[in-house]
């Protein structure tokens, strides 16, 4: 902990100081104090602007004084020759002597003491926004009723932050609205809706009156909306300058209302409501959507039905429809992953004692023909040769349905006739 006082003597004091010396003393007293530095003895070689030998006092990078020559106190009742009042708690004293001194000089003797600084009065800019209270070694700020000291311990503001709005509809106004809002405040409001809803802010132009922007267009008092991806505002002036309806596309909005020390107006009042996030009406090929709606929003569920002859193949299973939900991010679930593709019946199964022509394609509607190994086999059921790829992914025949044709042996027809010579 730095000392509250101290002594600074030149080298060899009170003997003569040596040549070619440069010595610096860093003086520090506790925070919240200033420094009263005074000299009771000064006997340093005199020169113009104290170029040769000197005692320099610097604080905060500014030279407070530079002493040289021989002086004594003018006031018989006080030993002080020179004194300095520094309103900071640090300074530097640097003694310099050059190489040649015709005479003996005995240097200097100085003392410093910590003195209370009246932070409330001694500086141009007052450290507190409202009430400043000085005490030895420091100061503290205090606030009028209804105001609270902010975290910076300097500014007073009303306690208008922290409100979280979670209802789907709500109204928010500046403190005391429509009476003048508090100065020097920062109010943060949070709207937090369920995922899947976007906050829509509506404002009436006349419900907004704040200190107008300065010449550079900066708002001394401002209202702004911030979402994860966007920032709306800041707004100020008489009459709301922004869009009267703001679709934030986000389920969370932070509202920041900031005021300075002057120019209070009636403030603002806004309404908000949660709009379910819309999902785009996608055109997914070869399918129809049920229900058909002009607009789909969060939590809407649609059944996407493949048109006849198309199906959804997922792994080893297939289906002709699937459900998709409008998600909180405005995208449909599964819709990119699942597609209605033509039913593919696959290569038709072979049959014993027959064959099936290689189909051009095996998609819905395709036709294939079976033939038996003639002349030894024939098709058991007339008209069971032609199969068509059906909607359920099987090859179907008019007569047999999905059952495969059957090639059965031709009976009673030898491949060679038996000719006898018998008459």
């Amino acid at each position, binding site marked *: 902990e730095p000392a509250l006082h101290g002594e600074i003597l030149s080298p060899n004091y009170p003997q003569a100081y040596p040549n070619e010396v440069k010595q610096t003393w860093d003086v520090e007293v506790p925070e919240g104090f200033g420094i009263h530095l005074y000299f009771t003895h000064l006997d340093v070689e005199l020169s113009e602007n104290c170029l040769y030998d000197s005692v320099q006092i610097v604080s905060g990078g500014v030279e407070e004084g530079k002493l040289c020559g021989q002086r004594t106190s003018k006031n018989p009742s006080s030993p002080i020759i020179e004194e300095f009042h520094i309103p900071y708690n640090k300074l530097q004293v640097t003694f310099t002597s050059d190489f040649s001194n015709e005479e003996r000089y005995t240097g200097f003797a100085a003392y410093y003491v910590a003195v209370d600084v009246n932070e409330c009065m001694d500086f141009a800019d007052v450290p507190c926004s409202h009430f400043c209270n000085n005490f030895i070694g420091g100061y503290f700020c205090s606030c009028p009723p209804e105001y609270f000291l902010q975290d910076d311990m300097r500014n007073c503001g009303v306690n208008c932050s922290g409100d979280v709005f979670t209802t789907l509809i709500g109204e928010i106004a500046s403190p005391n609205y429509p009476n003048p809002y508090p100065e020097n405040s920062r109010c943060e409001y949070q709207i937090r809706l369920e995922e899947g809803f976007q906050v829509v802010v509506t404002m009436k132009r006349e419900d907004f009156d704040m200190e107008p922007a300065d010449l550079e267009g900066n708002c001394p008092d401002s209202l702004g909306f911030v979402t994860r991806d966007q920032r709306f505002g800041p707004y100020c002036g008489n009459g709301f300058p922004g869009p009267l309806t703001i679709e934030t596309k986000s389920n969370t909005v932070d509202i920041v209302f900031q005021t300075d020390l002057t120019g209070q107006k009636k403030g603002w009042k806004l309404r908000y409501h949660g709009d379910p996030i819309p999902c785009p009406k996608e055109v997914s090929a070869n399918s129809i959507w049920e229900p058909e709606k002009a607009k789909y929003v969060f939590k809407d569920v649609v059944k996407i039905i493949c048109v006849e002859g198309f199906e959804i193949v997922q792994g080893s299973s297939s289906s002709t429809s699937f459900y998709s939900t409008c998600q909180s991010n405005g995208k449909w679930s599964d819709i990119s992953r699942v597609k209605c593709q033509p039913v593919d019946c696959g290569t038709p199964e072979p049959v*014993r*004692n027959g064959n099936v022509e290689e189909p051009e394609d095996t998609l819905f509607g395709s036709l294939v023909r079976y033939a038996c*190994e003639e002349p*030894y*086999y024939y098709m058991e059921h007339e008209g069971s040769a032609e199969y068509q790829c059906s909607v359920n992914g099987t090859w179907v025949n008019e007569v047999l349905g999905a059952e495969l044709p059957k090639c*059965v*042996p*031709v*009976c*009673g*027809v*030898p*491949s*060679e*006739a*038996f000719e*006898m*010579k*018998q008459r």
Partner: protein
Amino acid sequence: IFGGSFVKIESFPWQVFFRSEWAGGALLDEHWVLTAAHVVEGNPHPAMYVGSTTVQTSELDKAQALTAERVFIHPGWHPAPSQGARKNFDNDIALVRLKEPVKMGPTVSPICLPGSASKYNFSVGDLGMISGWGKTEKKDWVLRLRGAKLPITTLDMCQEVRGKDSQVEPRSYVFTENMLCAGGAGVDSCQGDSGGALAVKKLIEKSPKFYVAGLVSWGLECGTHGIYTKVQNYIGWIRATMQENSTPRED
């Protein structure tokens, strides 16, 4: 076969050779062979071959071998008498179910089963064909298939046959309506041809086909008239047996 000639299996593609019984059978479809009960009464798993004109071992190795899954002997078939020769060949019919389906082709294809409708009836004078590797005028059996054509006659013709052996009393034999008589002019089947088909071509529904009218069953004297099991009387049993013992797919 008496009074026949060498033939090609292509002319009798339904002909089945029962190797250990040295007998014949008729292929009905991919899974069934029809034969005489007396051929298989002693062997539940006869070894059979199709598609070969000759039956020497080297040829049979190249033929299509059939494995019996089960033999179905007609319930009306009487077991042989403990002494003496069998006199009763009534219901001399049996079915053999095959383990594996038969592959048809120019040398192998089934004979048609007649329906029970009258249009399938066979009349006296219908010309039939028989084939087999059985006894001929000169040999007890042959390695190369022989065949012959012969007319269906009345059963009396068979009852009037006198065997060379005067000991044999024709009237001691059982003749029933389940039997057909065919032959004449020296054309006949004989031992070793048993179970083979008496095939008769019929034009039914504009398509001429051979139907199995009879199965070589017995006779008093080869080279005269022979008795054949009258298959048409067993169509119900045949169909029922095949139906009840088919694999599901075959229904």
